[in-house]
């Protein structure tokens, strides 16, 4: 739009013209007021009350105590009148209130002697007699924040995130000695790894999203946030023209970092369910599964020497979020934020697939190979296969 037309437009809209903008809004307000006060002829459509509560979190802070965090994602206020635990009415307190307005949250504290390693069901009974259940599949005391636990969480994040990424990067000197064709294979392999990560991050995000309170519209939110993330990164790159290999590495590290954040969240949450749930075997599984991430980050910079400083930064960017995620998952899990971060991660990963894919295609063109050839294809397939089969270690 030219400066001239902009001026013209603002000229036309200024002054009394603004009233024209407000007029429909004023009318809307009047109609709403009419419907609220008179029913607007819709009284007959007024159905029975609908009560809906979603249990966000169950905490067993100490023996003899259960806490549940609840959100009202229904269309109207809900009052929790009584609480049952295992088919027995039990005393409780509610913070801030037993009445939850729409989108309101409350924490219910129930002094109930739960039995370690056994199952329990907490049932909230509303004023209208509707019931909402929170199932405790296996009761284990929730971990309390302590310096040693904090350190252990951080250590797990380190093993799962930074260590494998750094180990993977140690193939860098080897990769520098590879022929052009072999390097094309490695870059294609990176594309394969990233495709696997994109799919797995998408599945993680949509699973979180599907369980969010209805008003969040979880799955569409994942889609839109991913698209916005992808679009933003693409817009940034088109403004600056061709990316340098180091920039591509950083982008890959960012996408992988967001993916590892999700992995960390899951590990941290599992930790908070009971430390026995997380054997060192599982942590090693993730170390192995994630080692190829280092290869992916190092591959674009094989022909430039970014220096140790950048390698450290890349490793921290890609692996560090696993530590953050583990801590968050263990102490302050927020399903909405988790979904958003994973969705951003999807966009970032798809964008680097695009970037690295371009590198492969350019490389093929320089070598006089077709864009899709057996070297590249086998690289992509190998990348997906490595991720797929190492995932066996972390899925049972």
């Amino acid at each position, binding site marked *: 739009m030219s400066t001239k037309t902009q001026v013209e437009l603002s000229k036309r809209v200024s002054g009394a013209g603004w009233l024209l903008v407000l007029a429909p809004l004023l009318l809307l307000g009047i109609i709403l007021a009419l419907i609220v006060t008179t029913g607007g002829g819709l009284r007959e459509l007024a159905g*029975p*009350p609908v*009560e809906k*509560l*979603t249990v966000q*979190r169950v905490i*067993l802070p100490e023996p003899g105590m259960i806490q549940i965090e609840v959100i009202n994602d229904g269309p109207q206020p809900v*009052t929790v*009148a*009584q609480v*049952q635990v295992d*088919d*027995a*009415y*039990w*005393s*409780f*307190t*509610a913070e801030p*209130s*037993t*009445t939850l307005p729409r989108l309101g949250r409350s924490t219910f504290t129930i*002094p*109930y002697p739960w039995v370690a390693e056994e199952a329990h069901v907490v049932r909230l*009974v*509303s*004023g*209208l*007699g*509707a*019931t*909402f*259940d*929170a*199932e*405790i*599949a*296996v*009761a*284990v005391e*929730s971990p309390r924040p302590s310096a040693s636990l904090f350190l252990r969480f951080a250590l797990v994040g380190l093993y799962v995130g930074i260590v494998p990424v750094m180990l993977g990067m140690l193939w860098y000197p080897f990769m520098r000695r590879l022929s052009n064709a072999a390097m094309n294979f490695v870059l294609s392999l990176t594309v394969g790894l990233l495709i696997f990560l994109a799919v797995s991050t998408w599945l*993680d995000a949509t*699973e*979180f*999203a599907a*369980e*969010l309170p209805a008003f969040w519209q979880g799955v569409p939110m994942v889609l839109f946030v991913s698209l916005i993330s992808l679009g933003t990164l693409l817009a940034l790159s088109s403004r600056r023209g061709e990316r340098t290999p180091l920039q591509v590495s950083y982008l890959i590290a960012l996408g992988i970092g967001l993916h590892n954040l999700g992995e960390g969240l*899951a590990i941290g*949450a*599992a930790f*908070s*369910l*009971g430390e*026995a*749930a997380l*054997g060192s075997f*599982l942590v090693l599984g993730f170390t192995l599964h994630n080692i190829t991430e280092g290869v992916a980050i190092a591959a674009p910079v094989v022909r430039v020497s970014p220096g140790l400083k950048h390698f450290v930064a890349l490793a921290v960017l890609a692996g560090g979020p696993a530590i953050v995620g583990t801590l968050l998952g263990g102490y302050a*899990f927020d399903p909405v934020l988790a979904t958003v971060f994973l969705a951003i991660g999807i966009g970032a990963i798809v964008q680097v697939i695009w970037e690295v894919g371009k590198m492969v295609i350019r490389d093929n063109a320089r070598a006089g190979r077709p864009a899709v050839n057996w070297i590249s294809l086998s690289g992509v397939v190998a990348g997906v296969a490595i991720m797929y089969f190492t995932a066996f270690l*972390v899925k*049972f």
Partner: protein
Amino acid sequence: MSQSMRRFLSRRDFLRAGAAGAAGLAGAALLSQPSIARPLAQGPGSGHTGHSPYAMEHGAAGMVGEVDNVRNGFDPMQMLVDWDYGQVSILPNGQTLREYTIVAVDKDIEIAPGVFFPAWTYNGRVPGPTIRCTEGDHIRIKFVNASVHPHTLHFHGVHPFEMDGVPGAGPGEIATGQTFTYEFDAEPFGCHLYHCHANPLKRHIHKGLYGAFIVDPKAGRPPAREFVMVMNAFDTNFDGENEVYAVNTVGHVYARRPIPAQVGELIRLYLINIVEFDPINSFHLHAEFFDYYDHGTTLEPTLRTVDTIIQAQAQRGILEFRYRWPGQYMYHAHISEFAELGWMGNFNIVQPEDFPAALAQVGMDETWDRRSTQGATVPWRVEAGS
């Protein structure tokens, strides 16, 4: 731990990995299962946050808050003793005539503190009025249906077919706005009940259409402090299982307000089970044993020296016992689930000199005391030596 996290984890399979790999089990995972709501014109009261554990030995067990008896229009404490003798007159043949009016009305009632149930009621209360008479009395009940559903009055007793109060007998179901007068002689003596028999039967019963029907034997029973206890339950979310169990409707009410009685006096309970969905109910008395009169149709106990009995739906009987020492004695269904879901109460057994205080503690007075000790329609049978 949210459900989303649990799902996420189960896909990642940390949980099963941990459970399978290590000796320990995984952790607390949960599912939230919102159930559908149902129509109710009236909203719930304000929230309750205070504790009212029903007994010290149960720690924090029990319901929170109090039921508003005034808003409900009935007080379970009064229901124990509010015998309805009807309008009494003598027929030309010398027979006692008792005339009643029972109106079916739909009404939201508070069945546990803050929990409202869209009940169908007789005379606005659940259970309906306790009809009390003497065997051989002529009973005439004008039934008015002010509910939006068809209903009937079906008595457990002896009566002609057309007075049976079931579809197809006599007037069958009484439609909204219609009236029918049920008429029969009260027999046999005993502890009986009445309820609606319109279809679908299950719903018409569990919605609250039932009441006690006590027929005193002409010979009279020994003097006693008498209470009527109708064991009922409510399926508040209409899933075919009861959320609240009770005696006389309000869950744990006699745990919060123990029923006063005196050391050594004979206590007689008219116990009726009308719980829907569960095959049986039971009554267990703490620290004493009782004699039991199944259906109350005999003057001699059908079961002696027991402390637990079971009743199927509509089964009923009379319990007689005395307490030797003062104390707060518990009684409840010995189906622990029912007890913990509301069917549990206490007697407050005191020395005679402490009785006024015990009455005052639960807001009752001499009238209540008189009703509980002089409720029979015939003089007490005082046996030689007693």
